[in-house]
């Protein structure tokens, strides 16, 4: 027994040492195949949950693996992609006909057909598919393949900005059919027609792509693309500085540290990404239009831009940024606390001994929520509360999770963010239309204004752009007189990119992190030489 035990202990130790060998060997080479000039490593903060467009990936276009029927150019105008031309629209606005581009193949070599388009839309519209953005396609009644190359969409109602929704990526029917769309392998091993082909996805770490040599738009010059998921801003900046990354999204104070670096360029993208305070019409205090109007001019937006955003942003008067062709002039709010006090005085809100106003026994006080952990919204909320206090309104700032906040939104305020630069309808209809009050996360303030409802409907139904502009001007004017939200700021998104490429630009960006950034058209970049 004695001898046997010794033998066994020795062999356990020997095994341990053998397994231990890799840990002891030097990490010397660290050999990254950095054939500079052909590869691009981008540091991003958010990882996509899935790579399947059927579950919502790339729904706003610019996904590198896929193409939509249409796409948007640098000015966010629609142009054909998988469709050969822009769609034909029937006179009643209810039928959209797309003809497919010839000779497009998926990265597995199979040709693109009208059946793939029909399959993509039908699957997303199926209630069994877990796509949270399905309501964006609400207008669709049916999608049919007229022949191999022609797809016909019929709508339930006139929906002027419908074509903009068809930037949605198209998936190959043959690769998904028979799989569970919610959990099948297509979620992690997608196949598309796009300029890049996925070569690997280590969750929580990175996505790697290689150029699609057979891309219908021409083979990209950036041959290898890596999207590294780095949640921490400081780590992203450090990895950029060390050369591990070629480009990254960074907050203003970190992007600023690269300003003097001649080998890199700092890009500032304007955005439609606003932060606003919801002021519920059912709240005891916020239900009073006078309070909402007073708060609208009591807040010092420029101060928030300067202090909270480090100057990287713009004051937001209404929900549409000045970059939008639909933005109405003359809706700018002045910072005027004196007039705010007058409005409150006239409405009967009298200052109490503690400086907070009251009316008929109701203190001018309400709760303002922000999502726990969102520092930017927290800072906005605190600045708002401090400005409100100066005119005698108490705003109690509180952090909460979605689950905590949502049931309270009919009477409490929330610091929200949203915005879509493509068409005003995409954001405003859900934000302001009374029929969607409290529906999901739509119209959180329960805003209810008949003239706004009517204008939103008009803008949705008419194809005439002048009429649409007039309708959205009316909406923005109405929000001055009867604000349902206090819009605070529009946030610039900042990026740093190694100056090795030409053709690098930014577009006006949406609130969604998605695939925004200078790399929206990385397939068109050319090496500088």
């Amino acid at each position: 027994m004695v001898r046997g035990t010794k033998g066994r202990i020795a062999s356990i130790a020997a095994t341990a040492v053998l397994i231990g060998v890799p840990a002891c060997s030097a990490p010397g080479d660290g050999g990254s195949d950095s054939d500079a000039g052909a590869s691009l490593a981008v540091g991003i903060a958010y990882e996509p949950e899935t790579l399947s467009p059927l579950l919502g990936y790339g729904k706003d276009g610019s996904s590198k693996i896929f193409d939509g029927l249409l796409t948007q150019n640098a000015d966010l105008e629609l142009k054909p992609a998988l469709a050969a031309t822009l769609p034909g629209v029937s006179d009643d606005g209810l039928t959209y006909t797309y003809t497919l581009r010839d000779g497009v193949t998926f990265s597995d070599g199979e040709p693109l057909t009208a059946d793939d388009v029909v399959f993509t839309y039908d699957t997303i519209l199926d209630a069994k598919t877990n796509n949270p953005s399905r309501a964006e396609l609400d207008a669709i009644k049916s999608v049919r393949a007229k022949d191999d190359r022609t797809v016909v969409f019929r709508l339930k109602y006139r929906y002027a900005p419908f074509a903009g929704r068809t930037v949605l990526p198209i998936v190959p029917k043959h690769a998904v059919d028979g799989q569970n769309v919610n959990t099948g392998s297509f979620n992690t091993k997608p196949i598309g027609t796009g300029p890049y082909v996925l070569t690997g996805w280590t969750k929580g770490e990175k996505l790697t792509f290689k150029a699609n040599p057979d891309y219908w738009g021409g083979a990209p010059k950036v041959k290898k693309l890596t999207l590294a998921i780095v949640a921490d801003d400081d780590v992203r900046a450090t990895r950029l500085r060390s050369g591990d990354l070629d480009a990254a999204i960074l907050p203003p104070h970190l992007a600023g540290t690269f300003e003097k670096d001649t080998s890199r360029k700092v890009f500032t993208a304007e955005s439609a990404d606003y932060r606003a305070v919801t002021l519920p019409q059912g709240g005891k205090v916020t239900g009073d239009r006078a309070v909402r109007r007073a708060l609208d001019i009591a807040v010092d937006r420029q101060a928030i831009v300067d202090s909270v955003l480090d100057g990287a942003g713009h004051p937001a008067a209404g929900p549409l940024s000045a970059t939008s062709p639909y933005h109405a002039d003359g809706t700018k709010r002045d910072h005027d606390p004196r007039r705010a006090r007058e409005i409150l005085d006239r409405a009967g809100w009298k200052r109490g001994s503690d400086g907070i106003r009251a009316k008929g026994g109701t203190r001018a006080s309400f709760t303002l929520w922000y999502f726990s952990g969102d520092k930017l919204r927290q800072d906005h909320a605190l600045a708002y509360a401090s400005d409100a206090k100066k005119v005698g309104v108490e705003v109690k700032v509180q952090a909460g999770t979605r689950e905590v906040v949502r049931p309270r939104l009919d009477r409490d305020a929330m610091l929200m963010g949203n915005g879509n630069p493509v068409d005003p309808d995409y954001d405003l209809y859900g934000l302001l239309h009374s029929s969607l009050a409290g529906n999901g996360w739509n119209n959180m303030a329960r805003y209810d204004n008949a003239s706004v409802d009517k204008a939103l409907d008009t803008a949705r139904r008419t194809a005439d752009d002048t009429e649409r502009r007039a309708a959205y001007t009316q909406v923005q004017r109405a929000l001055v007189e009867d604000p349902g939200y206090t819009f605070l700021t529009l946030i610039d998104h900042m990026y740093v990119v190694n100056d090795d490429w030409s053709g690098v630009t930014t577009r006006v960006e949406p609130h969604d992190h998605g695939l925004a950034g200078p790399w929206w058209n990385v397939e068109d970049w050319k090496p500088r030489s």
Partner: protein
Amino acid sequence: MTFPWRAMLRMVGRRLLFALPVLLLVTLGVFALAAASPFDPVAQYAGTAGLSASQQTLDELRANLGVDGPFVVRWWHWLGAALTGDLGDSFSLRQPVAQVIGERTGWTVLLCATAFAVTVPLGTVLGVLAARRPGGWFDRVITSLSYTLEAAPVFWLGLLAIWAFALQLDVLPAGGLTDTRSAVVSPGQVTAHLVLPAGVLAVSQMPWFVLYVRQGVVDAYAEDHVTGARARGLKERTVLVHHALRSALLTVLTLIGSRVPELITGALLVETVFSWPGIAEATVRAATAVDFPLLAATTVLATAAVLLGNLLADLLYGLADPRVAFDG
């Protein structure tokens, strides 16, 4: 003396019988805890897109995910499916749970095995060296270092290691499985990326081995047979290796098994800090996303690992010391 197969098998059988109710209770507990969680699985699933979703879409998602109803009923359904081999689908990773486990377990085993392979021999050697002169300078340095490390949280050690080796010295990668630009998983790259996480895990486990071995050897030096060996004029080395170490190593054997739970919690933190794509990192995701199916499966795995670790420790102990019977 013959090998005690029968006694060992009886012990394994008893432990397996005991494991069944434990596993059942643990999975029920997971479902109860997840149901009590203030987080809504649908909100977690929908992510940012959920903030612009319509109520109808959110309701459809809720129905599809099957997260309605009392947790006992959901647990019962899960159990029924799991027994037929269907572990369900992970909400957070949008993959079948079986696939998640298959893809990730290997990386966790590699990480833990490497850490253990470093910590056991190194801890033993350091413990023995410290015990040779209790109170000497080496002993004092090693012992105080061990107590300090024992108190240091693993994630803190991890962040410290990243700061020192990746950011300041720039000699080792800060995380992940391969270099940023690499699309292929090569042994060389994995080795380089394994050093920091495995090292941190090993260092965090080391104090226990060092302190136990040190105490074991110190105690053994005081035992009669060691005193006897010394009295017979045997060389110090012979006394240590053949007499003192023999009883001290018994401690190490039991410790190996009983460290498994600590190793698992350590792996949870290390994998998260270093973005190591293992099963522990998936467990953290599952917990924060209220991903019932994945959480239940990984909990079963962790529980099984703990029970196996204990069984292994008892078997080894019984083998190494015939005075201990296999009747636990």
